[in-house]
């Protein structure tokens, strides 16, 4: 029911109506409290009561009519907008696919200033299509001054208008808006920074790569380094870089003054995007003094399904790290070590104090071929620690090596 447009008048009327009611009912209450009522049926009280009831009824009727009218006009407006959206979508698709010559669209049927439905339609299409078709649609926005209008709205003092403009520019991915979006990463409002970094990342993904700090990638990196955005937001923006992500992430990791929080984000993103060609860069962090970064490096290696030879020693050391979440991630990554290295190091971790380490160690061993499964089976039967035996049985069950009946038998044997 709460809408972005018409909110102000809706709020005003609601407050006026309820304020009026409150005053009237307040007056009635005070008149009762002051003992002016020797009898409820006395004429002045009846008058106040009648006036209050009348005003309340009028106010409620007014509110009711307003609400009904509001919903009626809203649904009419939405239906009309949807119809217009369909009409404009067809026209823009025709233009994008060259069914309709650009001149024909630019001529009389298309107003100089595009209606909202036309802009919404072209922005929705730009979310789906790129290449030559996308470029034709972007040209439409430029021809009708939509890009300039949106850039003007980026500086609007009205937050909703500004957020709308950022969202639209994020869909349009216009290179001419890139620097304006980057400048918003210093905005005092977190919501503006969050939307701006997303829109800028999406735009960068479509821009022509240029090397060096003055190129769009370099400018994005500098803006991101200086921006106060949450780790999740930074990671989301890096994911939105699509095919440009690898180059930006590589440059970010090479930045000497990159903060640890952003480094952590970069390592996470490399893992999530599965950028296998960055395994060596990630492996360099497996000896980092910060446990968060070291764990992030192991988590990334686990996701990349690779542990370079140079990182094998640090992984084996980290299996005994004092911080449990480092041991957890190292245990997960150990699934990608040679079995003869991993198994002797993982087996003791079955008796780790941390449930998570025991689980990660058992799961990794179960992935290390027949020898690994045999080791877990043996642990399920004869490990001196009950928690280790239970975890081994659980992992064998999950891996389908044991069925529930066999698992009960193994527990019985133990």
């Amino acid at each position, binding site marked *: 029911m709460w809408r972005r447009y018409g909110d102000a008048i809706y709020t005003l009327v609601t407050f006026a109506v309820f304020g009026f009611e409150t005053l009237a009912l307040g007056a009635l209450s005070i008149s009762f409290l002051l003992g002016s009522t020797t009898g409820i049926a006395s004429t002045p009280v009846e008058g106040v009561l009648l006036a209050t009831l009348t005003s309340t009824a009028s106010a409620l009727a007014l509110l009711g009519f307003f609400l009904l009218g509001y919903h009626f006009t809203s649904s009419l407006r939405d239906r009309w907008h949807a119809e217009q959206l369909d009409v404009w979508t067809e026209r823009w698709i025709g233009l994008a696919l060259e069914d309709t010559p650009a001149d024909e669209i630019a001529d009389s049927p298309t107003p100089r200033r595009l209606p909202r439905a036309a802009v919404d339609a072209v922005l929705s299409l730009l979310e789906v299509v790129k290449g030559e078709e996308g470029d034709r649609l972007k040209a439409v926005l430029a021809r009708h001054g939509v890009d300039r209008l949106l850039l003007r709205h980026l500086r609007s003092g009205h937050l909703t208008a500004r957020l709308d403009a950022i969202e639209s520019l994020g869909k349009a991915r216009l290179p001419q808006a890139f620097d304006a979006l980057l400048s918003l990463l210093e905005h005092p409002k977190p919501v503006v920074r969050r939307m701006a970094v997303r829109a800028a990342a999406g735009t960068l993904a479509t821009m022509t790569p240029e090397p060096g700090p003055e190129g769009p990638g370099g400018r994005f990196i500098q803006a991101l380094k200086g921006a106060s955005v949450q780790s999740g937001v930074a990671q989301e923006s890096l994911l939105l870089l699509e095919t440009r992500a690898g180059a930006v992430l590589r440059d970010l990791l090479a930045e000497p003054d990159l903060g640890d929080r952003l480094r952590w984000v970069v390592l996470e993103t490399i893992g999530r995007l599965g950028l296998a060609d960055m395994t060596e860069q990630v492996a360099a962090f497996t000896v980092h003094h910060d446990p968060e970064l070291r764990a992030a490096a192991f988590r990334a290696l686990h*996701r990349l399904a690779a542990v370079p030879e140079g990182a094998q020693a640090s992984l084996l050391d980290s299996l005994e790290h004092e911080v449990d979440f480092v041991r957890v991630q190292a245990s997960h990554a150990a699934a990608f070590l040679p079995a003869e290295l991993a198994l002797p190091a993982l087996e003791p971790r079955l008796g780790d104090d941390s449930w998570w380490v025991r689980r990660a160690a058992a799961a990794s061993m179960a992935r290390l071929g027949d020898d690994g499964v045999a080791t877990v089976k043996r642990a399920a039967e004869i490990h001196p620690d009950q928690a280790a035996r239970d975890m081994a049985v659980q992992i064998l069950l999950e891996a389908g090596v044991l069925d529930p009946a066999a698992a009960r038998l193994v527990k019985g044997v133990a």
Partner: protein
Amino acid sequence: MSETLRPKDARILVVDDERVNVVLLERILEQDGYTNVRSTTNSEQAVALYDELEPDLILLDLHMPGLDGFAVMERLEPRIATDTFLPILILTADIRPEVKRRALSAGAKDFVTKPFDRTEVLLRIQNLLQTRFLHLRLNPELATEGQAT
């Protein structure tokens, strides 16, 4: 099932909750000569349309309200004979490898990332259909008996 085994006669089903995407894909396919395209913006109808059309290719969005692309593939799985190659081309803005892995294990055969390039979409569709029809040539009984199990 296509008896003529010509890619342009292929039956194509488009399932995407965004009407704009559906219209765009329809036009792209139509312009490239595909004449047998059905679409829906309601993923709940995907299975019924599949039964009705018996498509040679499904273009499927992953993130949809209600029944998402994974759930649609799950519902279609028992209807697709194990020896049939029914290509499902996923259209998604989600580029994370785990999403791709999950979709591939659910039955998807290829991906197109949104925003997409028209040429790329058409080439992927063409490749998948060629594979589909080669498979049908090798298993002619599937082409005549229907693919639903």
